[in-house]
């Protein structure tokens, strides 16, 4: 069984540009989460999808971040326009039962 996969593994963009991160959850997992870890901080929750619906987006930092999960399969997280403080590692996770989440390898975003 394939795990959670994220693309790209690393992205370097200039301030003001747009970046789109993609996450493919484990097949059959209705729950999909986005987390991020900025430099020197703990991993923090961003949002939670159940199938294609946003269950909880209370962790989204501001309206420059847009997450979608059309069709309830893969998800994208777009940052537009990117700022320096958005640099960090963005993790996607999925679960079947909302309790045991399996993480992808993360996308390392560097905004310069």
């Amino acid at each position, binding site marked *: 069984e394939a795990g959670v996969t994220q693309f790209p593994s690393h992205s370097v963009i200039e301030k003001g540009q747009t970046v789109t991160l993609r996450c493919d959850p484990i097949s059959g997992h209705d729950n999909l989460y986005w987390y991020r870890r900025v430099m020197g901080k*703990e991993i*923090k929750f961003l949002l*939670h999808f159940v199938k294609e619906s946003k*269950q*909880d987006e209370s962790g989204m930092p501001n309206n420059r971040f847009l997450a979608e999960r059309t069709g309830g399969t893969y998800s994208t997280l777009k940052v537009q326009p990117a700022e320096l403080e958005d640099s960090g590692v963005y*993790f996607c996770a999925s679960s079947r039962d*909302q*309790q*045991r989440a399996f*993480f992808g390898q993360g996308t390392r975003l560097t905004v310069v």
Partner: protein
Amino acid sequence: QKEVEQDPGPLSVPEGAIVSLNCTYSNSAFQYFMWYRQYSRKGPELLMYTYSSGNKEDGRFTAQVDKSSKYISLFIRDSQPSDSATYLCAMSLPSRNNDMRFGAGTRLTVKP
């Protein structure tokens, strides 16, 4: 005060040693407690998952939760060089178990 406190280490032990990793937390409402292992450039991997207080054992790993003290521990017996990684504690509320609160992670090195 952070919701979850975890000593970032680094912690270095000889092979075969018993390792003790700990976290404290401030929110007494947390009910789900997890330990994740993260290798360099990889995503967190779920190691142990416990609900409420008590002990749980899985091979060389034992997780303990003491809710009265708001203290959780992970013990690794007969530590191996392959255990060298960052260990993250995480916890969540029963009503919001998608929103895991992570510790900073403890970097462990097991020397052969």
